[in-house]
């Protein structure tokens, strides 16, 4: 794999969990200081990444404990991804289509992607960057005229426990997929991992600034998908309007890549058929329990952060033990 391909992969994955779960949760907690929470969260992420990157993470799946931890992380991220993808499609694209069809089509796509192996997954990410990056840049610049920096005032006011939670959320959501990737990667180039992760940080930071700058704190905290609503406000030269659905394509790409990575991780732990079976079960559970029956994904926002962080810490301890033995 080309080294710049690694950057692309880490860039995509470090921001993949932010849409839906991340951004609105972080803005809700850190309000006008969200930009700072993102920076501090990614800094904490880099520190933790530094410890992970020194170890051979791909050896983690050789032990039973390591397998269990990777399995737990994969399933958590996978279920989040399925819910995120389905809810996005229901809300923005196909409001009348049953969740089953949306979730199962996602299942088919990620299984198909995972069946092409890790090299196919990398190639896909390299391909998608040519679509994703221009759309992302257009999205950022499109909202520049609407961005008001006074929306970030009063500066550093109201920093409390919620601000800490916002930092931890940033760390958990940016680092979780990266660690999963490290567990599947055999050749890791530290420099490119850091560059990819920092680029992801810049991307998330710009999304936060663009969202709060455009909507203001009140709207950004009250809307369920503030980043999507901010895209709705783009009107370039009074010609290019209602392009939000094009801009959100990037998030779908992120989620598909993340879903494929989770399935590849399951393939590495179990046999392929078991991996497919587990993915199917997770899809069904996420679809029926989280979306159709429970009809409330808020608790995922609240608790998955601590769960993913806990897993990250446990994996850090487990990799230390592995390297000692």
């Amino acid at each position, binding site marked *: 794999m080309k080294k710049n391909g690694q950057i692309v992969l880490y860039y995509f994955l470090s921001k993949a969990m932010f849409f839906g779960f991340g951004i609105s949760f972080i803005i809700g907690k850190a309000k006008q200081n969200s930009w700072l929470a993102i920076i501090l969260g990614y800094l904490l992420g880099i520190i933790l990444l530094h410890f992970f990157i020194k170890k051979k993470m791909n050896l983690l799946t050789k032990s039973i404990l390591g397998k269990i931890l990777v399995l737990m992380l994969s399933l958590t991220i996978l279920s989040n991804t399925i819910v995120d993808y389905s809810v996005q499609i229901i809300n923005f694209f*196909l*409001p009348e289509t049953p969740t089953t069809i949306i979730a*199962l*089509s996602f299942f*088919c*796509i990620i299984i198909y992607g995972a069946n092409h192996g890790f090299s196919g997954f990398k190639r896909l990410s390299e391909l998608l960057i040519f679509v994703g990056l221009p759309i992302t840049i257009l999205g950022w610049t499109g909202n520049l005229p609407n961005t008001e920096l006074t929306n970030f*005032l*009063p500066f550093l006011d*109201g920093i409390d426990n919620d601000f800490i939670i916002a930092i931890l959320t940033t760390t958990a959501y940016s680092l979780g997929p990266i660690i999963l990737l490290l567990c599947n990667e055999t050749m890791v180039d530290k420099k490119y991992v850091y560059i990819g992760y920092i680029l992801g940080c810049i991307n998330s930071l710009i999304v936060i600034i663009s969202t709060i700058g455009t*909507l203001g704190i009140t709207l950004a905290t009250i809307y369920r998908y503030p980043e999507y609503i901010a895209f709705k406000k783009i009107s370039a030269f009074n010609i290019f309007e209602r392009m939000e659905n094009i801009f959100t394509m990037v998030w779908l790409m992120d989620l598909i890549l993340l879903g494929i990575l989770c399935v590849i991780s399951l393939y590495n732990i179990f046999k392929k058929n078991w991996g497919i079976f587990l993915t199917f079960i997770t899809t069904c559970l996420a679809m029926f329990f989280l979306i159709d029956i429970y009809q409330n994904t808020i608790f995922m926002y609240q608790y998955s952060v601590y769960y993913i962080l806990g897993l990250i810490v446990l994996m850090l301890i487990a990799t230390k033990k592995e390297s000692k033995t």
Partner: protein
Amino acid sequence: MLIRGDEMKKIILLLIILLCTGGCYDYHEINDLGIVVGIGLDYQDDKYLMTYELLNIQKENNNSEIENKSYIISAEGNTISDAKVNTEKKIDKTVSFSHLEILLISENLANSGISDMADYFLRNNSITNNFYMILSKEVLPEDILNFKSKTRQTNSAIIINLLKADNTSENIYTKDQFDYQMAKIKDNLEDIVIPSVTLKQEIEITELAAFKGDKLKYYLNNDDGDTYGLLLNKIKNNNLINDVGTIEVNHKQIKIDINNQTLNINVKIIAKIEKLNKKDLSLKNEDDLIKVENSYMNLLNDRINTLISNAKNEDCDILGVRKLIYKKNPKANLVNYNVDYNIDIDIKINRGGSLFGVLT
């Protein structure tokens, strides 16, 4: 030719994806859609009267007569949801709000408070949030939406086009959209000002309507409206008229900030002379030019003072003083705030036109 097992799997997978991602569930023929471009909302006798202006998307009739591009459907209900359901019962199409442009509210509704309806319009996923709230002055929203215009455009489009024209003080921008206005009411850090329309020979833009909280408080007169538009950068080409003549503002730089309980309003304007009235003035003479500039500086100073004093009398914070105080000092008392005003105006006339003086 036999198909191998692997290929068969791929074909089945492809068929599943094709079937699942076709989006057939959400498919609607355009002729089956009732496209709502404007909503009128009135509140009378504890009942909401809702009016939809729908696009007429039928083909022209055989005689090639041009039909109106829209029609209205109205119904009332005890709540907004009730009124909506009753309205939609009368529409034989799937209602689509994706092209909604305006929400026209009546004075009755504005007087009784608009917060109650906000939640409904913003929570509903099917309604786009990029529409503008406009007040219907001295006439029911239903009558405005039902007006048969000479231009045969939809009435919602007429109102939007009037408001987006460069020469109105009510010029609207993205930040004037409904959700932003509602956020201002929720924040309670500034009072909102929205455009109003009325119906005479045609649909006309009238005075700006200032709210206190979520209730209509007063209408800004024309001078106040123009000054408000100038201070908030809403007018692109506005004129200042006094007994000396008329100048057109070409370029302006407005800065409003607060410092030590003093609201500083800095206005820098570059203008051109449109008309001179006084025969004794000659633009060859620099002192005369300064006199002209000073006369407009005094005019604008008076107008800003009047705008502030009228708003103060009505207890409305249309310039967002509370917001400025809060951004500077979040712990400040915003209930009984008291600020002094410092107005600094600098007008430079850089274009006098072809004439040095008054010809006749």
